[in-house]
């Protein structure tokens, strides 16, 4: 009997490194991007995440996972963190933390929910709330590589001022005929907003996505109910489940 040795199974240990905060960017009232210097960072693929470990003066430690927002090509590693009401770690990262502070980090982690230009397309990205983060890494990677792979993003947010990376998405789509960004706002959309005003449903996926005949690669990231609903609709629309990749988190998930 043969034992296939897979590339991922022989990778080196994912060890803890010290990250220094080079800067922070407040994206929305509850979401912050951390720009990090991480000596020895081995690089990542778009879609991967890291584990963050904080240590208090009394030795108390807490670990959480956060998606990487930056492209592999970017000079600094960027994490985008959503502040959660009871979040011990997220409230620190989105509050107290400032340039010059340090914490531990290890990664990159996750070798499945990843996309690179070599994976081709067409690409369909579906995000709910802060589920945009790993998908933004993919879009930034695509842009950095000057890729023309036809790409559509459908992004659901509660409110217009909670849309993360709103201006950058606008800029990316503006200069790139291969990228179409569609927003849906589920609460209190401004009067002038020209997009959808409801939760993602089958009709929206048909209009903003690709026909199953185009066999897109689909990445869905967001809170579990959104991801479950969208993934189920994609399968019902005839898309090959093997080309639909999901990453779930959020309100019904862990507290962070």
């Amino acid at each position, binding site marked *: 009997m043969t034992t296939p040795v897979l590339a991922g199974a022989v990778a080196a240990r994912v060890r803890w490194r010290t990250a220094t905060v080079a800067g922070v960017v407040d994206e929305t009232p509850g979401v912050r991007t951390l720009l990090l210097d991480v000596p020895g960072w081995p690089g990542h693929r778009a879609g991967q995440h890291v584990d963050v470990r904080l240590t*208090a003066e009394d030795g108390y430690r807490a670990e959480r996972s956060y998606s990487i927002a930056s492209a592999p090509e970017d000079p600094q590693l960027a994490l985008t963190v959503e502040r959660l009401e*009871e979040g011990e770690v997220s409230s620190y990262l989105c509050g107290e933390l400032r340039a010059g502070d340090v914490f*531990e980090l290890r990664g990159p982690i996750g070798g499945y929910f990843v996309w690179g230009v070599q994976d081709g397309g067409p690409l369909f990205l579906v995000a709910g709330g802060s589920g945009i983060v790993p998908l933004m890494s993919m879009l930034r990677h695509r842009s950095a590589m000057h890729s023309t792979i036809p790409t559509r993003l459908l992004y659901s947010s509660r409110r217009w001022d909670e849309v993360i990376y709103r201006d950058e998405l606008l800029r990316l789509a503006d200069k790139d005929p291969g990228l179409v960004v569609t927003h849906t706002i589920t609460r209190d959309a401004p009067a002038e907003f020209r997009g959808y005003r409801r939760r993602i449903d089958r009709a929206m996926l048909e209009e903003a996505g690709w026909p199953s005949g185009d066999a897109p690669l689909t990445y869905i990231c967001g809170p579990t109910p959104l991801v479950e609903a969208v993934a189920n609709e*994609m399968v019902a629309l005839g898309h090959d489940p093997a080309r639909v990749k999901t990453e*779930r988190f959020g309100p019904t*998930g*862990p507290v962070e």
Partner: protein
Amino acid sequence: MPDPSPVSRGFHRKHPAATQAERLPPGQYETRDFPVLSAGPTPRSPLAKWDFTLRGVDGRAARWTWAALQALPRAPRTTDIHCVTKWSKFDTHWDGVSIDTLLAEGAKQGVTSAPFVMAVCDGGYTTNVPLADLVDGKAMVAFIYEGEPLDPEHGGPARLLVPHLYFWKSAKWVRELRFMERDQPGFWESVGYHIYGDPWREQRYTGDP
């Protein structure tokens, strides 16, 4: 010697220590929710077409329909579960058929065991577990959670339950246990997750000791 962890300025414990902190493996925190984590869409198998297979290295197999599996003796269990994404959940209640029972029934049908097992699932998911971690009451094929049929999102109609390992080893939508002479990585194990996955040794990723 590893360097000591740097202190993160201004970070301190926000919540009181868990009342049963000794039940939390390193790096975990307690949740009362039951989060869902899967790599793709939730597969749905009609029970009329569902079956469960135990397959030896030589290809000999024992197979149970849904009804036949339900007719086997049950082994309810209350246990803590630990997900590699950091959440742990205490005192979850499960019911199903222990792997010991399935092995004994399989042996009657000529299925011989081997030191390693690959769990094979609807949707193409696989995960590897040593046989020693499945026997002596350590694991079951579970189809009841908290007194109700297991939801598809949580692996229903049936999932493997190996709660002393990280929860990705408790394969959702399990359809087959396939014996192997030598250990081989399953789905997550081949994309960077630990080959064994003991939460108490914090074996999250490839290369963790």
